[in-house]
């Protein structure tokens, strides 16, 4: 268990250090999300949007940004030729958990920036900031869980074909998208709030848990040859 934890932390630390050095993934993620938001805001123009549409636009951008920006976690190992070292030295679960945490941290950073830009550009009034924050965190857990497994799958098997990740990811994430949009809508409306979003939050917790459990179990089969 101790070795597992140390391995997990080592993977996480290494990736964060590399990321801080090059800042490629985070910059791409943020700029993609900002670019998409700006395009969307300009396309919509000054028309006032309903809370449902605002929530839908926000989550669509987050989903696309994740599909574009988080696919590199394992491909970069393949490119550097370090895949074999990880396979030899660490338990598969520790690698998955480390990469999952990296992706989760990246998503949190993305959320901060994207929600700020979104609130300004689309003139969103957030009635329940705590609820919005919790929704984003819970949604990011499920999103990171699914993206990490599927990006490993693509890096190991298909040589990292970029668009494949979104093809695989979107149908799997529909339950997450629907619950997150609904909870976000409740967070934007004064009349709704926590009570209206309880079921959606529980669904997000359950979805994140199920996805990560399944991913940990399945990761062994794609990680080991």
């Amino acid at each position: 268990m101790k070795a597992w934890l140390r391995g997990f932390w080592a993977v996480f630390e290494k990736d964060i250090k590399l990321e801080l050095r090059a800042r490629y993934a985070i910059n791409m993620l943020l700029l993609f999300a900002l670019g998409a938001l700006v395009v969307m805001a300009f396309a919509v123009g000054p028309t006032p949007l309903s809370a449902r549409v605002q929530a839908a636009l926000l989550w669509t951008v987050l989903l696309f940004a994740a599909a574009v920006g988080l696919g590199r976690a394992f491909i970069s190992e393949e490119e550097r030729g370090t895949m074999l070292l990880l396979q030899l030295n660490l338990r598969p679960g520790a690698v998955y958990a480390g990469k999952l945490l990296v992706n989760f941290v990246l998503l949190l950073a993305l959320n901060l920036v994207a929600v700020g830009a979104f609130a300004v550009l689309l003139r969103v009034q957030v009635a329940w900031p705590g609820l919005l924050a919790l929704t984003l965190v819970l949604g990011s857990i499920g999103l990171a869980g699914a993206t990490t497994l599927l990006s490993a799958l693509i890096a190991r098997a298909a040589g990292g074909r970029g668009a494949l990740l979104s093809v695989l990811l979107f149908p799997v994430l529909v339950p997450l998208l629907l619950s997150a949009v609904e909870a976000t809508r409740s967070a934007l409306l004064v009349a709704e709030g926590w009570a209206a979003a309880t079921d959606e939050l529980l669904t997000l917790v359950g979805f994140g848990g199920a996805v990560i459990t399944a991913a940990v179990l399945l990761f062994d089969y794609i990680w080991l040859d």
Partner: protein
Amino acid sequence: MAESASIVNLRRYRLIRNAVFVWLTLVVLGAFLLRIPRIHILEHTARNLYFHVPMWFTLMAAALVSAYHSLRYLQSGDPIRDLRAREAARVGIVFGLLGLATGIVWARFTWYLGTSLWWNFDPKQSFVVIQLLIYGAYFVLRSAVEDPEKRGRVAAVYNLFAFVTMPFLLYVLPRQMESLHPGAEGNPAFSDITHPIMRLVFYPAVLGFIGLFWVLYTQRVRLALLERRLEMRKATMLEAKS
């Protein structure tokens, strides 16, 4: 890699195939010829029950079979399991498309009569669309990998991963969308609104279409197995030549 020996008892297969054909012929005759109660708006479209609903059952059966064989493939690595998972998914897609098509047309001229709607986010229809998207992605993934063993493993992992998210879909969709299907919230249950004579045809139809799935599926599995053996023989012959 373990090699599978002969996988099917041909006599039993032919027996079941012929039984399914006779059975389905009777079902189709019963579906069109038996008198059914005439209900306003629904009228004779009610007969679509015998075709539309079994497609949905069959898709679920195919998804179960496919996921089961994916799991067994990961455990054993036997290539036949991969072929089985693939062919179950492929035949499942056909039944899903048929179920979707019969459903859309039926809904257009009964539920959405007087509107110009073809699609109104019914939870069950949406579920089938997403299930079909998942299988579409499954085949795209398969075509992206060259090495058969790796392809089998990757495809099995994706199939099972998608299978895990299915219950959430079944729970989330009805919460967000209104359903006009019988048995949904506030709607009468299926057994309360169907005449006994309709159930007399409906249940055999479900069995018959699942039987048809079984026939098509085993047929395709054997075909795939033969193709695989042929390829392997070709490879060994080429090796011997060189």
